[in-house]
């Protein structure tokens, strides 16, 4: 039975939308996974020398033990926001001849194999091996230590699900736990009682008496049984398996009315953005990326390389354009058929999308004015790049959008989500970023920094002046690709 469930799981992984069908995407995902695994492995191996260097007077492992509780707390917070138990997936199994207990066990045990549990494994185990080899600690005590830390981590894994389940149904029932955590954190923070240090003492004992590792295993088992019993009680369609539904508040974005013809579509796009997870996260990411410029403008390394400033300028003012624009019109994939058969001229539909992206460039540029702190030159760069984005990059993205044939699930998180990504998304990066950088570099080398900027700015203005002409051409392209797009958006699998 477990074998069958595992094979289901494997299929759901390899056939999942974000994993995609294309080979290039698969290679990229595998590359990312290997990259992270290797990074953590290096941290695991390198931790011993690092600790030795920072605290030359202390025994590295005893020092590390002092920090473990703090680390676990961080892990809990991280998991709380990132990791969720995929209970909805088991809905189809409800009607089948499988015992509830088995399904719940399976879902819970499966969670142990998640990315979040494999990463700590890659740190703790190499660290324990290094210690066993380099110091007087015996292999047995290090095995005991590694088991303890791992099972503490697994306990956090189950504890997190418990919090989430309890949290979802009744906030009050969880107050005592929150208060205990806050008190502990307070004691530590205000240096009244060094809680983390005290907790580390336990791990020190484990090093002396490795059989004490049984305690974290028991703790983990307790949490496991607790979560399992809670989940089993909620294994009903109207309880734990229900997808969340909030009462909706109607917003109209009336202020968009002033944009006349386009208002209807702009209002729809605002709702699209604020009511769906993926586009909403895109907005937040754009705001965070506003700070990206700090990396360039504060770092003296880039002082002699104004090309990097232009890169930052294009990026800061155009981050929403890049993140949102590259998936136009896939955002409307789910109801693209409706948009195409309704009383909507294609030209107007595209114009509204272009307007939305243009607004985002203007808003981001305004928000980036504090960069004037680093000199008016910096502001000038950002403004010029914004012009280029408005004039050239917006039509460019609209044009490449006509090659988008992959559906996007609006409710999925964009992190590590490559759904909707096709060759077009990778290729567009070249003209989008490389061309302005190249043009600037050429004129910068031939003439001067100012001439380079001027050329970029003029290109942008020309693009803005030609906007109508370009949009006409783009509309023709969209009409040509219409049937292929409709067909592509109907494929829910990829």
């Amino acid at each position, binding site marked *: 039975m477990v074998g069958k469930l595992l094979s289901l799981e494997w299929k759901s992984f390899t056939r999942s939308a974000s994993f995609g069908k294309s080979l290039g995407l698969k290679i990229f995902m595998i590359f990312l996974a290997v990259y992270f695994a290797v990074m953590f492995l290096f941290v695991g191996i390198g931790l011993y020398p690092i600790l030795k260097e920072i605290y030359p007077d202390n025994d590295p492992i005893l020092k590390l033990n002092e920090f473990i509780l703090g680390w676990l707390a961080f892990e809990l917070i991280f998991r709380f926001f990132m990791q969720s138990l995929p209970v909805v997936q088991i809905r189809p199994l409800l009607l089948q001849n499988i015992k509830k207990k088995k399904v719940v066990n399976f879902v819970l045990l499966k969670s142990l194999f998640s990315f979040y549990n494999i990463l700590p494994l890659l740190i703790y185990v190499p660290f324990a091996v290094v210690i066993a080899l380099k110091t007087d600690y015996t292999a047995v005590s290090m095995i005991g230590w590694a088991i303890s830390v791992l099972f503490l981590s697994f306990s956090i894994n189950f504890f997190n699900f418990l919090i989430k389940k309890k949290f979802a149904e009744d906030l009050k029932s969880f107050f005592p736990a929150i208060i205990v955590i806050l008190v502990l954190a307070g004691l530590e923070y205000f240096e009244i009682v060094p809680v983390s240090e005290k907790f580390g003492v336990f791990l020190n004992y484990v090093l002396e008496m490795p059989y004490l590792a049984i305690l974290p295993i028991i703790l983990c088992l307790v949490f496991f049984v607790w979560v399992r019993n809670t989940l089993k009680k909620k294994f009903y369609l109207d309880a734990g398996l229900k997808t969340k539904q909030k009462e909706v508040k109607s917003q109209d974005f009336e202020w968009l009315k002033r944009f006349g013809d386009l208002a209807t579509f702009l209002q729809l796009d605002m709702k699209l953005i604020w009511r769906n997870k993926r586009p909403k996260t895109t907005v937040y990411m754009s705001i965070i990326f506003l700070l990206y410029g700090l990396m360039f403008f504060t770092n003296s390394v880039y002082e002699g390389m104004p090309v990097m400033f232009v890169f930052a300028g294009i990026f800061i003012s155009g981050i929403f354009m890049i993140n949102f624009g590259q998936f136009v019109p896939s955002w409307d994939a789910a109801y693209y*058929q409706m948009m195409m058969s309704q009383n909507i001229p294609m030209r107007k539909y595209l114009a509204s999308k272009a307007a939305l992206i243009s607004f985002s460039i203007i808003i981001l540029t305004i928000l980036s004015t504090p960069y004037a702190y680093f000199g008016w030159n910096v502001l000038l760069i950002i403004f010029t790049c914004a012009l280029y984005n408005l004039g050239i990059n917006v039509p460019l993205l609209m044009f490449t959008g006509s090659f988008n044939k992959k559906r996007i699930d609006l409710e999925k998180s964009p992190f590590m989500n490559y759904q909707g990504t096709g060759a077009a998304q990778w290729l567009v990066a070249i003209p989008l970023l490389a061309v302005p950088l190249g043009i600037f570099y050429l004129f910068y080398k031939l003439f001067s920094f100012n001439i380079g900027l001027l050329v970029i700015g003029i290109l942008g203005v020309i693009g803005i002046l030609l906007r109508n002409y370009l949009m006409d051409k783009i509309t023709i392209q969209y009409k040509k690709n*219409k049937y292929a797009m409709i067909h592509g958006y109907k494929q829910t699998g990829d």
Partner: protein
Amino acid sequence: MITATNLSKVYNGTKVLDIDHLEIPQGQNFGLVGNNGAGKTTFFSMLLDLIRPTSGNIFNQDITVNESEDWKTFTASFIDESFLIGYLTAEEYFYFVGELRNQNRADIDTFLAQFEEFFNGEIIGRKKYLRDLSKGNQKKVGIVAALIGEPKVVILDEPFANLDPTTQIRLKKIIKDLSKISGTTVLVSSHDLIHVTEVCERIVVLDKGVIVRDIKTSEATLKELETYFSGEQIPEDFKETTEVTTEAEKADNPE
């Protein structure tokens, strides 16, 4: 009036639709029946320019559907849930479609008032996104949205599926009134022979993309359709009526 000539669609060498000539006069209640894969949805999708025909043309009021977008101003449709915008509430969706059809909010509110009975209190003011409504209620929203702005042509694919019995009865009345009162051409497809014979003046049977029956609805139609779909031999006299009605149809509506 809708005319299809030499219309065909080929997927990977298989012909899924092959219509020599089909004419649907203005104001007719037109029903399309056929088993799965008969080409009903393909035909409707072509009518809406969502699928490009391999050969032939469709004209909607003399506009070639895949060449001009002008037919969109007087044609409305509901094919399936993918015609709904999941993150809007029902009211927002109606207002959105209304704006596309030059109807302001007050117009829409008056328009919706006449469907109060049809909605049965499950649509308006529910504060739910369309994606969270049940299938039946989603269908109600889609159908009513297709009637906004007095379109001349309304296309409904399987409108009766997923609806509760009361709503089915109400929908039948709505469809009948559409062509009777406002002269709208209504194209309906259905798997339910009883509903379709009750609602439509004319029924066309598709089988593997080919028109096999073209019937002017009469008392005998239901029986005839049932006989056809049960796979039994069709009695001679029925066959005759079929042919006769087809002839009569053509005589009624000369090209």
